[in-house]
């Protein structure tokens, strides 16, 4: 008798297992997702009715050769326990484990730290997904390119406007062969408008030696500066304090974007799969609104049975949790997610918004381009409103009267908006009662 794990069918004669890693970060990161991340870890925030990382798992589940998924991050062990339990029943073909970093190791450092677990069973390839992106995750297409090119690495890329490009990792590729010729994280000048989507497929034989080389180079370098690819990186790079030199050597903060991808472009069989489909970062809390819209639209195109049936008062796509109560005269949509046990009163209007669990929207209230935090209340005839950002924009702030304000209005947990009160372009921290009209403010 052999100890053979039952393998699923492998199309295209693909041999060898593939694993997936989702990089989830930790509580001390993701501050830009406040005030929502004050109450829920960003990867578990509900967008289009499901946690952000659930959307990653859905894509991973569609790759037949993947059976094992690791969430790597430095949140407390307990944080993902319930999610993993639920996901196990929803994705029976996947084994999902959380690997906790004892400290932030960087995106590559975390991978390397857990190399033994990842390499167990000798997988040929690993997908690495950043949990803070929203996209259609065309993993099977990436895999096909990987095989066609006999690649060592494939990166998912997308085209953005020229002025937006330098906020991201920029890829220079050979238009014909799709080979990555050059990679720079957040360049100062314009290099390319093809950017890194934060989704990778690596050959295990290539990625771990690459990280090891980077660690070795780090250890050999006497410099106080860990990496310096641009002035942007100067600020964000890991500065080594004289006092903590040894400490930081041990820290092994190695990031894929800054420390690995550039070298891979020089020395490895590194290709880019360019997606024409949607892609957004989920960085600020406001970016949950475009992500919600894009995932709902995807579900709508796929005829997802989860979505509410369109009617005169339901403009698709709309997700309503089965336990929510929506008055028949309330008008919802497009791009609205209504969470568990939410109550929407008579004649209320909700558009381009997320209403989180246990919240109440009273009669005749109007909620536009906003996120209503858990257990919040919006009074009768109140108006909670954000401002739509231009289609294709990767920003979540806008300039109003010469001042930068949040485009999306966000109410944190257990906030209250009084009857007839107007809240416009505000971010409201948890447990606040709004009794007067407010606009363009952060309410502490």
């Amino acid at each position, binding site marked *: 008798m052999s100890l053979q794990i039952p393998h699923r069918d492998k199309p295209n004669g693909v041999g060898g297992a593939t694993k997936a890693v989702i990089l989830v970060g930790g509580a001390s990161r993701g501050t830009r997702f406040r005030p929502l991340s004050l109450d829920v870890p960003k990867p578990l925030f509900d967008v289009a009715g499901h946690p952000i990382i659930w959307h990653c798992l859905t894509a991973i589940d569609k790759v037949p050769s993947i059976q094992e998924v690791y969430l790597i991050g430095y949140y407390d062990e307990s944080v993902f326990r319930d999610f993993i339990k639920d996901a196990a029943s929803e994705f029976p073909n996947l084994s999902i484990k959380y690997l906790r970093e004892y400290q932030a190791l960087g995106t590559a450092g975390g991978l390397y730290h857990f190399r033994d677990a990842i390499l167990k069973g000798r997988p040929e390839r690993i997908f690495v997904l950043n949990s803070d992106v929203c996209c259609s995750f065309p993993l099977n297409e990436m895999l096909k390119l990987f095989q066609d090119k006999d690649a060592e690495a494939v990166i998912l890329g997308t085209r953005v406007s020229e002025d937006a490009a330098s906020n991201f990792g920029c890829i220079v590729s050979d238009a014909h062969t799709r080979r990555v010729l050059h990679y720079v994280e957040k360049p100062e000048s314009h290099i390319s408008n093809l950017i890194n989507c934060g989704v990778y497929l690596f050959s295990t034989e290539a990625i771990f030696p690459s990280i090891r080389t980077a660690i070795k180079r780090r250890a050999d370098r006497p410099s106080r500066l860990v990496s310096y690819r641009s002035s942007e990186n100067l600020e964000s790079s890991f500065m080594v304090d004289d006092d903590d030199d040894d400490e930081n050597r041990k820290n092994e903060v190695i990031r894929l974007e800054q420390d690995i991808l550039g070298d891979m472009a020089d020395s490895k069989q590194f290709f880019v799969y360019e997606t024409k489909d949607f892609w957004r970062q989920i960085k600020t809390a406001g970016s949950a609104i475009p992500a919600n819209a894009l995932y709902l639209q995807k579900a709508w195109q796929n005829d997802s049975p989860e979505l509410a049936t369109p009617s005169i008062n339901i403009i698709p796509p709309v997700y309503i949790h089965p336990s929510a109560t929506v008055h028949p*005269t309330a*008008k919802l949509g497009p791009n609205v997610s209504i969470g568990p046990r939410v109550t929407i009163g*008579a*004649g*209320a*209007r909700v*558009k381009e918004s997320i209403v989180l669990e246990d919240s109440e929207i009273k*009669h*005749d209230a*109007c909620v*536009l381009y906003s996120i209503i935090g858990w257990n919040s209340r919006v009074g*009768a*005839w109140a*108006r909670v*409103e954000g*401002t739509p950002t231009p289609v294709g924009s990767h920003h979540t702030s806008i300039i*109003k*009267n010469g001042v930068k304000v949040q485009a999306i209005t966000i109410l944190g947990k257990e906030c209250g908006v009084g009857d*007839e009160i*107007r809240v*416009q372009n505000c971010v409201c921290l948890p447990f606040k009662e709004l009794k007067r009209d407010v*606009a363009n403010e952060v309410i502490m």
Partner: protein
Amino acid sequence: MKALILVGGFGTRLRPLTLTMPKPLVEFGNKRMILHQIEALAAAGVTDIVLAVNYRPEIMEKYLAEYEEQFGVNITISIETEPLGTAGPLKLAEKTLRKDDSPFFVLNSDVTCEYPFAELLAFHKSHGDEGTIVVTKVEEPSKYGVIVHKPNHPTRIDRFVEKPVEFVGNRINAGIYLLNTSVLDRIELRPTSIEQETFPEMVKRGQLHSFDLEGYWMDVGQPKDFLTGTCLYLSSLTKKNSPELTPVTQPFVHGGNVLIDPSAKIGKNCRIGPNVTIGPDVVVGDGVRLQRCVLLSGSKVKDHAWVKSTIVGWNSTVGRWARLENVTVLGDDVTIGDEIYVNGGSILPHKTIKTNVDVPAIIM
């Protein structure tokens, strides 16, 4: 008895409403401004009314003919070919005003109050001098011209003090006068001011008295004051238990002072008031919240909209879940889209608004 109403020019201060309707015909408390005055004058025994204007709106004549018949008065329009100020128009209309020896009333058309013409006439007769100015008491007299009485005389005017720095009194000219025909002898046919030329001269001769106005007073020549004046007018109707007001027992009436034309339609689950006037043929949808606002005839406020401190012009439409506030004025036939927010917008006639007006602005 005779009266002259100083209408003046195009009423630019009340735009955008006056772009399509002459100011005297704009409805105030569901009644055209001029009609309030004609009605009160007729009740005081006035038979001849002169409207002093410096333009000739065709549409006025139709309404004036109607009012002539309704109240049994003669209404003539006196047109200035050049602006004659506040006194010149009296001279121009001398023929009518001298029709008999009785004194004549002079009214600024922008002023709203309870028009106590009978009491004014009785007072005027009692003092026997040439003129009486109606005065109202204000909280901040430093913004106005203040009237000072002769020492030891309760009504005879001693002098006018323009924008006093120190307190000299709080009675100001309310823009309503009763004058003997002899005053016309002292007015020349040229641009001239009754306040700055005619009255000071009468004061010198001790011929001018003041008459204290009871109740509210407001110059409603601009939108903000038009709304405030409407509140004052509705409050006075409430005080008088006017049967015109919608009873507070109606479930949708909130806080009283609500005046709804019988032809208007009100939807379910609305909350209306305080201080709302709803004109003829207005349609208010379901779940609408209205307060401190004026809906002019033929306008429509759709379901779940929220309207405060706003004048909705004739035949205009306010979309579902729209929110209008902060002295927003919609001209004739304006459309505000669904879910749109307008903060202090002045919207010119026939415009359709599809994006928010976040800060006060004139939308051409």
